[in-house]
């Protein structure tokens, strides 16, 4: 009888722990799903089927012998192909020669220590330098809800791997929104932890000041389990923060963040706010001072830092980059040091501004993406009757919290009239990733009837 895959990591973990579900059977089901869908959706660059089945068999034997490691033991996961995994090339989604790591990045090593089964390396916007996952040497990544639309990026393949049931947790990276953007575009949960939480060692950098790594999954609890596994290999159910009690004190940063939203985002965000208020939570409008300078500060940090990393590669392999990615990297080489220093000062100022906006609150509440998933290849999109650049719109609501380092999580909040998911975002206090997970669990609980919890598999 074919396996009916569990709907969540937590559900799968319970069955595996009880020995009611074989890690080998679960891994095989995920690999079958990848085999059936990857040619069309291009979620994966490398599929490590043989190793995954061997690891699953070993997990099964350990669990049978009473050596259960925790909720990720025997659970298939995917890893963005920016993160070194021993024995597999790290392509960064590029035709530039891949890295050949002989050891795991710390976050991958922690996942292995937790007993996770790595099924493969996911496709991405080349070198993480984009928001649409359509500039990649390994085939355009497609949104499972509409094949002609982007899944967002840069962790587009990771998001698709979750939606399609190809795995139960995905590792992504986030420099301007690259976990939260595809999570919103694909209707899943994506966590950018506090900047101090998870090591980015042996992760190909985009901008070392702004880079984060984090989990993507179907639910907040699943994301929490994956986060703890990435943190230290200890993914125990009792570490998952319970949903925060009533009332939550939430702040909606109105100026700048709510200025440019498509009609469905505006409607669904407004409805979500009303549902949360009716549930007993307190929500007030707040201001993040100087938020309108976010994109300028972001550009003058991210561009030169990206160009710094790629300087030698650009000299040798310029023609192997996607043209758009290459041009953006070349652009960064022209930014003057004085403007980089201005932007780094701006970073400190914006960090204090977000801290002040959060005073007395549990979290900020705002949309995660101002638009639905854009058509593949689109350079502009219409918002409130005006044509706006896709890239700027995709980054608009997420990039500030890469600048400041505050933890932030994307949650689904329904679908637009176009059938595409829309998402909201919660931002917590600095150093407060676990508290943010508790807040997110409460919001997820109270919005449950509205969230897109469809199993697309």
């Amino acid at each position, binding site marked *: 009888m074919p396996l009916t895959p569990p709907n969540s990591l937590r559900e799968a973990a319970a069955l595996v722990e009880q020995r009611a579900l074989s890690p080998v059977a679960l891994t095989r089901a995920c690999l079958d799903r990848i085999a059936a869908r990857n040619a069309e959706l291009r979620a994966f660059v490398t599929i490590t089927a043989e190793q995954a089945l061997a690891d699953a068999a070993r997990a099964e034997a350990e669990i049978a012998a009473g050596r259960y490691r925790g909720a990720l033991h025997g659970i298939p996961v995917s890893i963005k192909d920016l993160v070194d995994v021993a024995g597999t090339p790290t392509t960064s989604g590029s035709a530039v020669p891949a890295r050949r790591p002989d050891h795991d990045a710390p976050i991958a090593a922690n996942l292995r220590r937790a007993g996770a089964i790595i099924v493969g390396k996911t496709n991405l916007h080349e070198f993480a330098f984009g928001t649409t996952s359509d500039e990649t040497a390994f085939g355009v990544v497609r949104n499972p809800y509409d094949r002609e639309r982007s899944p967002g990026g840069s962790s587009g393949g990771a998001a698709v791997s979750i939606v399609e049931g190809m795995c139960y947790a995905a590792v992504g990276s986030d420099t301007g929104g690259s976990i939260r953007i595809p999570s919103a575009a694909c209707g899943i949960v994506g966590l950018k932890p506090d900047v101090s939480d998870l090591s980015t060692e042996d992760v190909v950098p985009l901008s070392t000041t702004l880079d984060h790594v984090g989990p993507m999954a179907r639910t907040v609890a699943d994301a929490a389990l994956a986060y703890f596994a990435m943190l230290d290999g200890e993914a125990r159910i009792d570490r998952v923060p319970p949903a925060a009690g009533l009332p939550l004190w939430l702040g909606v940063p109105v100026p700048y963040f709510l200025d440019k939203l498509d009609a469905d985002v505006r409607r669904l965000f407004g409805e979500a706010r009303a549902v949360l208020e009716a549930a007993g939570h307190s929500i007030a409008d707040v201001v993040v001072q*100087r938020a309108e300078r976010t994109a*300028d500060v972001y*550009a003058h940090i991210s561009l030169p830092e990206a160009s710094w990393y790629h300087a030698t590669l650009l000299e040798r392999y310029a023609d192997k980059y996607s043209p758009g990615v290459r*041009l953006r990297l*070349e652009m960064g080489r022209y*930014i003057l040091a004085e*403007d980089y220093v201005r932007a780094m*000062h701006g970073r400190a100022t*914006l960090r204090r501004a977000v801290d002040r906006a959060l005073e007395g609150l549990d979290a900020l509440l705002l949309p995660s993406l101002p638009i639905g998933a854009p058509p593949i290849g689109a350079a502009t999109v219409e918002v409130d009757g005006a044509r706006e650049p896709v890239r700027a719109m995709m980054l608009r609501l997420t990039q500030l919290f890469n600048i400041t380092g505050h933890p932030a999580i994307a949650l689904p909040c329904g679908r637009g009239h176009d059938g595409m998911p829309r998402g909201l975002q919660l931002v917590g206090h600095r150093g407060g990733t676990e508290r943010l997970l508790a807040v997110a669990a409460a919001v997820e609980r109270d919005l449950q009837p509205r969230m897109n919890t469809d199993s697309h598999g």
Partner: protein
Amino acid sequence: MRPDVTRWLARACADADARGLAELRPLLEALARSTHALRDADPDLTGSARDPEDAPDAAE
């Protein structure tokens, strides 16, 4: 646009043209608008020195 940014843009475009990267021009022009906004921003954001002549208690 600020004269310093205008000069920067001219040099950057000339260099891009010389390197055979004329397609960089629109990106550099967009970047210049952002650089202008950053340089023109409140010194409380960027940490840049204020012009002492702009101080409200500047001596005559």
